[in-house]
């Protein structure tokens, strides 16, 4: 069991504002499922059934602070507006888990003053959008001064899928792979084939499968000499991903904007754009959650670019991803 203390809290971002330093307590997100009693007349006890609707709430207690970009600036006049939040309870380190979400945040914000105490700020949020729990930090919250990316240390999706033994590859285009046991792959999955011998051309490497049946799938390779043996392991994830980018202090210093992307790669060698966030022009703080239908390849990384030309630019940036399905 791993225990966490208050020093483990990496960040609490609301709409691009980092509020961790003035918060003393953070509860949530509480995710609750709406239910409706399904029983009719004549029954003694209610029989609640889930309606399929869920909602989330967050509560925070902390110090009142009206410094620039602190909690008062973040919360005043912000009721019933679209907000993006992210909370990292396991530390502000790439690869660590975090929760994030976006949507209408009906917030209650109160300043509490009392005798002999510092003024407090109390906020509660009721979030109408989806909450993504156990997302992963791609780019830890921190300042960047120049264009960059995290592709040198991408986040592996942590595949835990079992390798499936391959019996043979057929002479065909596309080649049909026979597996020794049910493979559980679906059409569109990326699999890493390793140790397959004798085929022309070699089929080892990343291939995208088309499911035929429980023990057959095809790969888009024109095999002229069949092979045998080896394994296939699924490396991509299905059902897409939700990604978050949060930009705090931003100095463009003549640059046109800041462009942020999430990129993925099947092999960790070549990375391709997965999604691009709306460009940040420096007008106010910015945070955005975007989704991609997937599949998402094994490695994910953040990428950012100060567009145009300028002087001493900087941005307080955090990027994360939540794969909407793990590897089974």
């Amino acid at each position, binding site marked *: 069991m791993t225990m966490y203390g208050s020093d483990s809290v990496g960040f609490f971002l609301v709409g691009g504002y980092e509020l961790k330093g003035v918060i003393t307590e953070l509860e949530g997100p509480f995710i609750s499922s709406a239910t409706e009693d399904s029983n009719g007349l004549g029954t003694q006890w209610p029989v609640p059934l889930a309606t399929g609707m869920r909602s989330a709430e967050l509560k925070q207690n902390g110090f009142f602070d009206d410094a620039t970009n602190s909690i008062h600036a973040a919360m005043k006049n912000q009721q019933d507006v679209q907000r993006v939040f992210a909370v990292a309870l396991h530390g502000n380190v790439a690869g660590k888990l975090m929760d994030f979400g976006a949507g209408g945040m009906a917030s209650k914000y109160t300043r509490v003053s009392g005798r002999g105490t510092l003024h407090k700020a109390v906020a509660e949020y009721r979030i109408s959008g989806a909450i993504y729990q156990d997302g992963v930090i791609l780019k830890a919250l921190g300042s960047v001064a120049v264009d960059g990316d995290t592709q040198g240390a991408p986040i592996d999706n942590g595949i835990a899928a079992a390798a499936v033994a391959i019996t043979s590859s057929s002479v065909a285009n596309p080649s049909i792979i026979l597996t020794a046991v049910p493979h559980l792959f679906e059409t569109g999955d990326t699999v890493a084939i390793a140790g397959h011998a004798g085929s022309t*051309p070699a089929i080892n490497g990343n291939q995208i499968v088309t499911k035929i049946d429980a023990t057959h799938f095809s790969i888009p390779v024109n095999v002229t000499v069949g092979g045998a043996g080896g394994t296939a392991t699924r490396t991509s994830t299905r059902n897409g991903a939700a990604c978050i980018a949060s930009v705090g202090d931003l100095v463009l210093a003549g640059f046109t904007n800041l462009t942020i992307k999430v990129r993925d790669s099947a092999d960790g060698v070549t990375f391709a754009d997965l999604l691009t966030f709306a460009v940040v022009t420096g007008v106010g703080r910015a945070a955005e959650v975007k*989704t991609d239908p997937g599949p998402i390849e094994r490695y994910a990384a953040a*990428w950012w670019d100060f567009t145009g030309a300028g002087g001493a630019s900087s941005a307080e940036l955090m990027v994360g991803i939540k794969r909407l399905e793990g590897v089974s």
Partner: protein
Amino acid sequence: MSSKTRKTATEPTVEPTVEPTGHDYVAVVSLTNAEGGLLAAPGDRCDQVPIESLGWLAQRGRIVLADAPPAVSEATNESEATS
């Protein structure tokens, strides 16, 4: 004795399989290497893309054969909210 030249069936000619190279592909999205170096911008030929990456990139539609109909860039991702 006359000698006859025996006719032999013509052996079928096996055309060697020519695997497409990076030059045969055009990038649909921006492609970079692990060090962040640009390999191909959208519309560029993929000469600099490592050959081992061509397969999955082509199968995912992130690169297309140069003579293929122009692909629509991945614009399927959606923004949920900004603030």
